[in-house]
Every structure is written in C-alpha cells, then in structure tokens.
C-alpha cells in the first residue's frame, strides 16, 4: 500500500504549486508499469487531501500505456508487463521506454 505515501507526496507537490489557493482539480499521469494502482491513489486522495487546499479538488488520472524497445532487434512493442516478449523476434528483456510515469501533470486553482 505504498499508494498512501505516494499520495501524501502528491498532496505536498500540489500544495507547493498552488501557493495557498484552493485547488479545483489535479491531473496525474500514472504509467501502467509504475506498480501503482490508480484506484488505490483515488482511495487515499480523499484522506490525504482532507484539511488542505486540495480538500474539494477532483482527481483526474491519465493512464500511460507501456512501451518496450527490444535490445535485440530494436522493434517497439506495446507491453502490459515487465516480461512481455518482443512482438517481432520474441526476445525478452525489453527496455521500457514508456509506462513507468508517476507525475503530477497539472493543477487547476480557484
């Protein structure tokens, strides 16, 4: 349940950026290979935002699909997991080029 400490980080980042203004919405980017469950972040967000300028903010989560590049043949493959093989040559050990994102993208302040 590391989503709890991650969500505390999210709230801290947003509080700094908002500089005291009330936050209307928060947009996050969460990669499908980040190991973070969007549902769990949503669950934690309400508790972590309580008593802060994010208390009434809505949360938008943009999921970023995984993309791996094959070290063998160089082909790029959409991946759902760390052990998906290359779609061209079947090799394992793709270098993950997208899908590990964990980012506060933007805020909307009142």
């Amino acid at each position, binding site marked *: *349940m*590391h989503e*709890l*400490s*991650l969500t505390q*980080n*999210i709230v*801290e*980042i*947003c509080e*700094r*950026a*908002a*500089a005291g*203004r009330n936050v209307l919405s928060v947009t*996050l980017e969460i990669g499908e*290979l*980040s*190991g*973070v469950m969007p549902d769990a972040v949503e669950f934690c967000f309400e508790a972590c935002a309580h008593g802060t300028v994010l208390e009434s903010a809505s949360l938008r989560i943009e999921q970023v699909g995984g993309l791996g590049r094959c070290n063998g043949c160089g082909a790029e493959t959409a991946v759902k*997991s*760390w*052990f998906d093989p290359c779609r061209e040559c079947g090799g*394992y*050990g793709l270098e993950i080029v997208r899908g590990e994102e*964990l*980012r*506060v*993208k*933007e*805020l*909307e*302040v*009142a």
Partner: protein
Amino acid sequence: MCTVCGCETDHHYDHDHHREEPRAGQRLTVEEDILGRNNRIAARNRALFAGKGVFVLNLVSSPGSGKTTLLERTLADLAGRHRCAVVEGDQQTDNDAVRIAATGVPVKQVNTGAGCHLDAHMICHAVEGFDLDGLDLLFIENVGNLVCPAAFDLGEAHKVVVLSVTEGEDKPLKYPQMFHNSDVMLLNKTDLLPHLDFDVARCREMARRVNPGITIFELSARTGEGMGAWYGWLAARVGKR
C-alpha cells in the same frame, strides 16, 4: 535542521521550484515526479556512500525468505574481511536488530509503523550513527514485501532480491517489478529442495524473462552451501566504489 537531507522534521519541502503566484481559474503546469523527493534524497545518499567508499546493498524479499538468517551467516563469515553495518527495516519490533547485534556488527533498526517500505529519507537518518569512514559494506534489510520497496530508491548500489525455495517458483512473474529492479537474486533454502517440488531451472528462466541480466546464486544460509559464490561477488565489488 538535518544537515544531510536538509529536512526540518519528518517532512521537508524543496524550494527549487519557484513558481509565479497563480491567478484565479488558472491551469498550472506542474510536471513533477511524485517520487522526485525520494529520488533526490536517494541521489544524495548514493553520493555520500560513494564518497565514503561504502558498498550498499538493499535486500528485498517477501516475509520469511530468510533475509535475516542470510545476513547473520554472511556477517559471521565476512568478519575480519570486510567492515560491515546493517540497517534493519520492519513495521514493528527490534527482533531482527537484536539478532544482528549478536554478531557484533553495528545495526540500526528502523520501524516503519504503518509503512510498507523503507524510503531514502529514513536511510539518510538511519546511517547518521554509523562511522561511514570505517565501513566497507552496508546491508539494508528492507521490509518483507515484494511490492512496495521496488519503487523506492534508497541510494543503494544494487537491490538484491532473496527468494526461498519454499515459495512458488513463479514469484518473478507474479512480482515482476521487484525482480526487474534487482541486479542479484539469491535463491535461498536450497537445503530443502529434496523435500519440495520447486523447479530451480524454471524459476531461473522466469527470473531471466523479467530481467535477462540478473545474477543468480543458489545457496542455503542454514547449511552454508553456495555461500562462497555470494561472498566472491561481494569481494569483487567492495571497496571499488
């Protein structure tokens, strides 16, 4: 104020992102990494360890894989060869720290309470009591958990994942991020193999599917079988950073 990480108390705020005062209804582009604070402190830890010549390993596994027994054996066998210290991470109790202290090695227990992992900030404070100039090797025994510790860089040289043969051989596929992020896998409790259906070759194959470059040692911390290769791996790296 902490002079290592610059924190005020338990939380600290970075002041390197000065922003304009937001206007009403304004959209603010933030683009900030949620793990950024942890990663910045981890980078500072790494620089500190490199400067002091301490080789740091982050031991991760599920609960009960034998991390503490492996450490007890390793510390006893390496006594006189490398100067070691240990940071013990558990949600509660100092039981493991007591076991490690019995080997005569400096140890610091970190209790994470509700937390399921160690983070870089905990480590930067945990090592304050150690004489880093007098250390070659620091083992960090993470909280027993194959999920959450994978995401948190502590400033270690390598993550070392311990998997015992009493667990399923498909653990690397079930918890791929941890095996992907680890450079070494120690397959522990091999003395029990005659009593189990555990397929070592299949386990190795699955670990390599997740991480083709992973270094694998088969060993038993209880009998000492296979520990020599692990010590050889350590000896080749200690003091070289």
